[in-house]
């Protein structure tokens, strides 16, 4: 058994309480500094000339006029003549100048000639005659699968079945590892047979082999009810308030300092070292606060490398380039679209027996994601096939719970339609099918009972189609979701100073999730001291490494390393003071600002007096999480959550209004109830936003993004959210599982729950999100034109 554990619930002065985020005052007063705010003396403005065409070849570039302009300090051609460009907005030339006006003028003075090539930007349903992708896996195919987070077992199966058409070297394997390719995939590549790539024209469609499990044909034939439908979500954009970008400077020819907007402080330098040709150890990565990431800020991007190169060319002077909003929409990531034709069947009791899905979607040139269908439900008989569509647009990036929101919208939409066909309450249908709801089924059961209570579901639910008079129809919908969320690797230095103050150093980041707050809470709770005695230093790659903040791995990761370090430090302190208290170190406890013999307040030292025994220099220890292949102790994997939505739809205008949403969520041990709830509120609001408003629209004629701004790419505002209720699962059954990440799971269900509520209100399914007036009215028209 591990020597580390969370304290007993009866001795947690701070854990699990409702505590305000420790960096709240700096943020609300505007003092908090972000990469965008970095503004040293002599700062140069960087900017990039971007390709206006969705597919083109560069014929010539003439930067001479720009270079001669007064105030221009450096010019770098990023992609040279001859290069093929695959999406509008791709980087061509970078310029640094004394100010933004000058750099804008210089960009306009650059002449680039393009050979415009045919582009393809549609993610409409692929034609029926697309052949299954069966040839060997190319290097590009592998990269696409990894970027699209195709499950490892599917990747391995494809490698084994189809062979590979490239010959990776040991160095390639190393770089794959660095990019997060898991060891079993690398082992499969090492054992793969080499197959010559067939010469064939490039297709925009990559269709997987048909996957079959059980006997779907038999099951559909024998089923009492079969429901068919189309569901899906278009591409949406992260819309971080702080755009991507960085500021670089070179104190010497071989040293670089970069301020960068990132969710991966410890992982940036290794990515920059090779292109900049300096050792990673000579790169100092700094970031105090980050204005949103949501999965899109893990890499040192081409524009960041360009910024560093421009700085070097400008004699090492600081250069800052934060993407403008248009570029942000074009190149800085999006969530892949996913759509599916689904057939789902149940027996006479509502037990789901069969599933068939043909899904498709795009994530840019690399194809699309593979939503895990059917979501959560382990339907015994299934058949499925996915087609990834390669389109000429900036590539997808991880977007909060990659692939899950799409899979939930498709699956839970189909389940709701099945329930409607059975004339069954979907809550009852889910309950009938909990046996196939995977490892978190008991959690869903408890959570649905609470959600029912908070929403008044059983009292208020009606059969599909609100039959009350008038043009406003009201309805209820639900969904459920799961996520892993085990803590990542994290190491930290933990010092107790002789005056009793505590300093923690780790190379992590706080995306607004409250990471800084929960680190502080765990340290103070373990040592029995107030929060303001603990200072957390983070956002610097020279501190011990922590993982990137992705996949909801930070909370479990940083609280684990903090608990370990704090326990180590506390025990080391006990060694120093045991003699004074005439006790053995293991007989001591740190509680209520004292170090004392357990349960004996008469044999105690005030915290400060105890720390005075440390000596002249601070007591420093480390906390280091176990490797991923060891069983977790302070963290865990796997959470469940359920959500319900209540909407009103005006069937004359098609406008959907959110009346109320309920979220019931598990995340293991809740460290801080306040910031945990905020995560869930935030996820609901982001979910309402993508359910009702968001869509990245590409122009089929020009291949450009038509709405690369906040006027025509609509986000939810304060008036759009309705009443929100959040309930965190705590106590027995949850606490003892340890700390599990919370950022992804609650953003999975809103699209499905809201879409289901709209179907329940208006009596027909609006197949695709967002639930805009146009999509709602189209669905009503298709169902017979009833607008009243």
């Amino acid at each position, binding site marked *: 058994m591990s020597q580390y554990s969370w304290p007993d619930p009866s001795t947690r002065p701070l854990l699990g309480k409702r505590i305000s985020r420790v960096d709240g005052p700096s943020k*609300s*007063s505007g003092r908090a500094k972000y990469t*965008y705010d970095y503004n040293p003396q002599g700062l140069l403005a960087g900017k990039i000339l971007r390709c206006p065409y969705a597919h083109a070849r560069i014929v010539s570039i003439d930067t001479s006029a720009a270079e001669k302009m007064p105030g221009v300090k450096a010019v770098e051609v990023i992609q040279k003549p001859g290069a093929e460009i695959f999406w509008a907005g791709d980087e061509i030339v970078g310029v640094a100048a004394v100010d933004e006006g000058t750099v804008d003028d210089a960009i306009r003075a650059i002449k680039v000639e393009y050979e415009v090539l045919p582009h393809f930007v549609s993610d409409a349903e692929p034609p029926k005659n697309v052949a299954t992708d069966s040839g060997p896996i190319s290097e590009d195919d592998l990269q696409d699968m990894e970027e699209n987070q195709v499950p490892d077992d599917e990747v391995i199966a494809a490698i084994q079945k189809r062979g590979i058409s490239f010959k990776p070297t040991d160095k390639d394997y190393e770089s794959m590892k660095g990019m997060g390719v898991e060891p079993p995939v690398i082992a499969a590549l090492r054992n793969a047979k080499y197959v010559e790539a067939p010469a064939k024209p490039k297709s925009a469609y990559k269709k997987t082999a048909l996957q079959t499990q059980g006997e779907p044909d038999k099951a559909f034939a024998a089923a009492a009810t079969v429901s068919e439908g189309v569901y899906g979500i278009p591409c949406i954009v992260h819309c*971080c308030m702080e755009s991507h970008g960085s500021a670089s400077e070179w104190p010497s020819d071989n040293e670089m300092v970069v301020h960068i907007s990132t969710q991966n402080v410890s992982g940036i330098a290794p990515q920059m070292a090779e292109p900049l040709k300096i050792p990673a150890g000579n790169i100092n990565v700094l970031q105090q606060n980050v204005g*949103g990431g949501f999965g899109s800020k893990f890499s040192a991007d081409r524009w960041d490398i360009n910024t560093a190169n421009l700085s070097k060319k400008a004699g090492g002077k600081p250069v800052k380039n934060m993407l403008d*909003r248009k570029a942000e929409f074009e190149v800085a990531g999006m969530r892949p679209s996913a759509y599916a034709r689904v057939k789902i069947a149940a027996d006479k009791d509502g037990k789901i027996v069969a599933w068939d899905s043909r899904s498709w979607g795009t994530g840019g040139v690399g194809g699309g994601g593979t939503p895990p269908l059917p979501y959560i439900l382990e339907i015994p008989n299934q058949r499925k096939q996915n087609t990834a569509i390669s389109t000429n647009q900036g590539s997808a990036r991880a977007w909060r719970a990659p692939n899950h929101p799409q899979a939930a919208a498709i699956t839970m939409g189909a389940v709701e339609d099945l329930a409607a066909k059975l004339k069954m309450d979907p809550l009852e249908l889910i309950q009938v099918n909990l046996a196939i709801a995977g490892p978190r089924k008991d959690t869903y059961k408890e959570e649905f009972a609470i959600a029912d209570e908070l929403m008044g579901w059983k009292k208020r639910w009606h059969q599909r189609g609100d039959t009350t008079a008038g043009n406003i129809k009201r309805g209820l919908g639900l969904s459920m979701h799961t996520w892993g969320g085990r803590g990542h690797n994290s190491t930290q230095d933990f010092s107790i100073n002789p005056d009793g103050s505590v300093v923690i150093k780790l190379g992590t980041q706080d995306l607004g999730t409250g990471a800084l707050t929960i680190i502080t809470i765990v340290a103070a709770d373990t040592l029995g001291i107030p929060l303001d005695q603990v200072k957390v230093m983070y956002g610097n790659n020279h501190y011990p490494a922590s993982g990137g903040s992705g996949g909801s791995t930070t909370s479990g990761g940083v609280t684990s390393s903090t608990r370990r370090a704090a326990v180590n430090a506390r025990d080391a302190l006990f060694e120093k003071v045991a003699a004074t208290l005439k006790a053995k170190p293991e007989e001591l406890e740190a509680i209520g600002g004292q170090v004392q013999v357990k349960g004996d307040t008469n044999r105690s030292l005030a915290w400060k007096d105890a720390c005075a025994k440390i000596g002249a220099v601070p007591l420093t220890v480390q906390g280091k999480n176990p490797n991923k292949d060891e069983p977790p102790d302070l963290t865990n994997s796997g959470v469940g959550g359920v959500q319900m939505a209540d909407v009103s739809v005006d069937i004359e205008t098609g406008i959907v209004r959110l009346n109320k949403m309920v979220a019931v969520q598990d995340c293991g041990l809740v460290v801080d109830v306040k910031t945990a709830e905020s995560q869930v509120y935030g996820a609901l*609001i982001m979910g309402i936003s993508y359910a009702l408003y968001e869509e990245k629209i590409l122009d089929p004629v020009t291949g450009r993004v038509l709405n690369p701004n906040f006027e025509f790419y609509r986000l939810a505002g304060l*008036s759009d*959210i309705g*009443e929100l209720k959040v309930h965190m699962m705590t106590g027995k059954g949850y606490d003892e599982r340890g700390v599990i990440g919370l950022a992804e799971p609650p953003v999975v269900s809103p699209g499905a729950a809201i879409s289901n509520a709209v179907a329940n209100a208006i009596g027909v399914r609006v197949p695709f999100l967002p639930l805009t007036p146009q999509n709602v009215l189209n669905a009503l028209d298709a169902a017979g034109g009833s607008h009243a």
Partner: protein
Amino acid sequence: MKDDDTRQPETSSGVSRRDFMKISAVTAAVPLVMGTNVVQAAGEEVPIQGPGKVPVTLNVNGKKLGAELEPRVTLLDALRGPFDITGAKRVCDRGACGACTVLMDGKPVYACSVLAIDAQGAKITTIEALTEDGKLSPVMAAFVAHDAQQCGFCTPGFVVATTSFLQKHPKPTAEDVRRGLSGNYCRCGTYNGIRAVALAQAGGEQS
């Protein structure tokens, strides 16, 4: 020019929009006549600023701040660049998101949509001046208490907007809040907390 030109109806500002277009045509046709900073347009003498740098003096948080700026520089970029006052954030840069909200003569404006030269003479107040003797203002403290912030990038804009809203609506209803605080975007989804801040600060009705 009057201080509050941008908010006057067209007819009272001295130059109508149609005239302005004529002026633009004049400057485009006769660019950079050195030493000339007044042109005749629509029968009136109209001063021309730029296109090079011109001296700009702004009254920000009670201090006079001067810089040589091109006329195309926005108030937001003047604040964040030469004056290094970075609380107001640049997010959409075209008047849609409110992250750059500052007060101009007490009224909230999107600083990305006001030219620095046009802000001369006005009293500019940024988030930095809303702290009271170095302490959080009641609105700021409420943002912390209600956890009305996550990444925090939209927060300064929201704090300025909320402060101004509450001055105008000391006892807001939930409907007032919905309408009055819809000019700012947040991506992390902190509206629930912001709504609570506005209602609790005013002791108004709870949503």
